[in-house]
């Protein structure tokens, strides 16, 4: 007998997978460079959600954030905390990933602007034909 919570969580999981599919389709098929950048950013975001979903856990009644609320924890508090807090490793990885992803997107936008200034279009098919 599957818990309703597990069912709802699986729905979330599958929805994020569908997002990944749609955004990859956008990256490969749509011709405009800006549209490709939008699709790429959605793809990256979905991957981040995915990593965080893997670090999630089930706890009663609900898991807590991986941050202690007291500065002098007793050993009971620590064991209670460690048995209900979510995994702190994926957030630490995603945290740097988000900022770097933004910087890379900014660099791509700069490249796209430069391309537009030099070629006068952002349609990737026309740009390829000009150089081919």
């Amino acid at each position, binding site marked *: 007998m599957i818990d309703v919570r597990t069912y709802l969580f699986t729905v979330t999981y599958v929805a994020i997978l569908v997002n990944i599919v749609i955004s990859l389709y956008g990256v490969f098929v749509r011709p405009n460079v800006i549209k490709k950048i939008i699709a790429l950013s959605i793809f990256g975001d979905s991957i981040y959600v995915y990593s965080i979903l893997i670090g999630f856990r089930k706890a009663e009644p609900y898991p807590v954030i991986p941050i202690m*609320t007291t500065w002098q924890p007793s050993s009971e508090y620590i064991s209670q905390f460690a048995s209900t807090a979510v995994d702190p490793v994926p957030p630490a990885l995603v945290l740097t990933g988000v900022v770097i992803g933004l910087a890379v997107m900014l660099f791509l936008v700069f490249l796209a602007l430069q391309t537009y200034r030099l070629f006068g279009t952002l349609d990737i098919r026309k740009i390829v034909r000009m150089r081919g």
Partner: protein
Amino acid sequence: MMIVEYLTFFIPFYLIGIIMYVVRALKGPTIPDTVLSIDCLGYALAALLVIFSVYLQSPLIIACAIVLTLWIYALDVYMSKYLEKKELGE
């Protein structure tokens, strides 16, 4: 636990409101309609975040609501600058 039970009753109303804003944002015939609905959506979401902070009994996650409020305003500013005829820097 009285407080939490009370909130359990009211969270669905906020969800229905958010879904209505999303419908308008995705349907919105013109660009200003979409931006306005994203506005309402963001502010409603900020309220929902504060409610969830009490509901899940994790007080430290409140800072997210402040940041969301700020950035929804920034999105407004960008879009109205886009709609104006002036160059973006001026």
